[in-house]
Each structure stands twice: as C-alpha cells, then as structure tokens.
C-alpha cells in the first residue's frame, strides 16, 4: 500500500497546525511536525494544485486547510516517501467536494481572468492573499522578459487567452487563422514560459 486508501474529505475545524498542541502525545507531535515540514515543503504547490481544481482562491484555501486536518488525523498511516502524493490526493478530494457544494448553490463558475486577477482586489480575502503570495516578483519579471522575446504571433495569443480571457475560438476568429494554429502557438509559448518557473 502506498497511500491511505480512504481519503474521504473531513471538514476543517480550525488551524490545522496548532490544535491541542499541549495535549498531544509524542506520536501526535511527530505527525504534526511532519505535516508542518511537508507543508513548508509542498504547501505552495499544494495550494496551486487545489486552486487549479476549484478555480477560486478562497475555496482553495479551505480545501488545503481541510487536507491538512486530514493529514493530522490520519497522516500516520502513510509512508513518508508517499506522503506528498497522499496529501495531494486528500486535497483533491476536498477540492472536488467543495466545488460540488459551491456549484449546487451557484451554477456559474468563475472565469479564468476572474480568479487570476482577484489577488489585485484590495478587498480580497485570505485565500486571495495566499494566491498573491504564490507569485514571486523575480519570476514574474523573468516571465515578462520571456514574453517580450516571444514571436509576436505567440505573444498575442498568450495575452489574448490569459490576460483578455478570450477563448481559443475567439482568438482564432479575430486573427483569422485556424483554431489549430492558435493552439499550437499557445502551446509553443507555454513551453518557453515554463522555463521561467522555479523547478520543484
């Protein structure tokens, strides 16, 4: 067995890193310290992954918190070398549950540009603030330089898709090129831009 077999979501009950610290047993303390260590090691990546599933910074923060609670409750059943994958899987299930709950009450999901730009909103909440923390200025500057050096046709597609939030079909119609050409340009551009991201 490589992971705990039942990553059923559990509801968040508070700060996952400091519940009942004074009453914890040596085994519980070991688990907590391991979760803290893993969070520091994988927390940002975990937050990004969950954000990609729920596409909402606040919901993503909630899902990550729930996943960490689960890790404290049941993390001892996972082997250390597979703990990261287990943690991500638990977070994924939390994210799916939260997303379903949200969609039950609100059908319309946020568009890409909405949750990408929410970190610029002065009224943004803790989830948005955590998303803001995921972006490093140096990386953004590197990406900007790479953007500047992209061929013009690729840069136009990237900006239209990500910044202007146009669909690939809309971009193809505006540029009067086949959809496949737009997809190829985007794909080639992303391959170049990915080089700016820090490697995990």
């Amino acid at each position, binding site marked *: 067995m490589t992971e705990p077999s039942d990553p059923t979501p559990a509801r968040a009950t508070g700060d996952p890193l400091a519940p009942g610290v004074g009453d914890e047993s040596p085994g519980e303390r070991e688990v907590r310290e391991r979760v803290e260590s893993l969070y520091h090691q994988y927390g940002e*990546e975990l937050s990004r*992954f969950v954000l990609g599933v729920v596409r909402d910074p606040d919901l993503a923060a909630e899902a990550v918190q729930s996943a960490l609670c689960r890790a404290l409750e049941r993390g001892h059943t996972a082997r250390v070398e597979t703990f990261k994958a287990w943690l991500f899987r638990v977070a994924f299930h939390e994210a799916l549950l939260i997303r379903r709950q949200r969609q039950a009450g609100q059908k319309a999901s946020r568009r890409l540009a909405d949750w990408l730009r929410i970190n610029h909103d002065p009224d943004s909440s803790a989830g948005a603030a955590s998303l803001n923390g995921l972006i490093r200025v140096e990386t953004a500057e590197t*990406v900007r330089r790479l953007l500047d050096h992209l061929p013009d046709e690729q840069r136009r597609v990237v900006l239209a898709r990500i910044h202007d939030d146009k669909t690939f079909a809309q971009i193809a119609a505006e540029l009067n090129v086949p959809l496949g050409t737009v997809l190829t340009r985007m794909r080639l551009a992303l391959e170049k831009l990915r080089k700016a*991201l820090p490697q995990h």
Partner: protein
Amino acid sequence: MASNHSPRPLSEAVDLPWLAFRYVAGELDAAAAEAFERRLDEDQAAREAVAEAVSLLTTVEAAVSLPAPAYRLRRRLTRWTLAATGLAAAAGLLIGISLLQGNRPRSSGPINERVVLTWSNLIQDETEEWLSVVDEHTIEPPPVVAVSSVPEAGETGDVFPAWLLEAASLPGDPSEDPRGS
C-alpha cells in the same frame, strides 16, 4: 488502486503540461475534463502539472500587470537615442555637403549647368540682399560725439562732424574720383 507512479506513454507525458493548462483554463470539454480528473485521482505527476499550470497562469497575469521594467525603458531610450543620433548625423552630413559644394554647379551638361549657375547666382544675390538688410538693422552708425562743448571758429555747432562738412564742400562732380586720379 492504481499506483501514483504508473508508467505512462511518452506522448501522454509530453502532453501533460498542455493538458493540465487546458484543464485549468477550462478549455477541456466535459468528457475530457472528467477523464483528466480521473487521472488526477491516481497520478501525482498530473497533480503537479496542474499546480505548475496555475503557477504559470498567475505568473503570466502578474507579469503583464507589472509596471514597465527598467530594462524596457533602457531599450526604448536606446532606440530613441539611436534614431536621434542617426537623424542628427544625416542632417549634419547634408549641411556639410552643401557647404562644401557652395555655389558650384552640381550638374554637367550645358542646360543643367546654366540652370544651376542661374540658381546659384539668384541665391547669392538673395543672400547678399538679405545680409544687407540684416546689416541695416543690426549695425548702427557710430554715434556722433562732440569733442568739445564749445564750438571752435568756423564750426557750426551742429551735430554734423567736421569731416562730413568738409567732404560736402569739395568742388567738382561727385562721380569723379575725389583723389583726382
């Protein structure tokens, strides 16, 4: 339960970042998105690809929103400087050539030579006329200063200097050489 590290065909591994980007961007149709989420349940590489796609999207959006960096200003400045330097050099070269050539005819052939010569003379005449106008307005005559406040004998006491009165009183045709040669 499927393994988190189950081997995937090479094409799937290569396409994973692209697939993850399209999933995050909401570009997959319902069936493809559902299939990808089944993969997310079992494939840690796919989960990490989603995290990377989010990182890329947020970073690109942040990069576009950044104020113009210094390197861009430098590049713009360099371009403008180069353009201005080029224009100044071209203008200087043209002025230099025109000064060197002066009023010389610039074309060969009798007709062209005449035209150029006429044009050069016209320019010369106009230039001299213009210079004389400038002189009139910029070079004032020397002020007449009375040497003594008490007029000597024979002096009129007017503002005309003595040498002018003497020249005016000389006999003979003014068109003749005053030296008598």
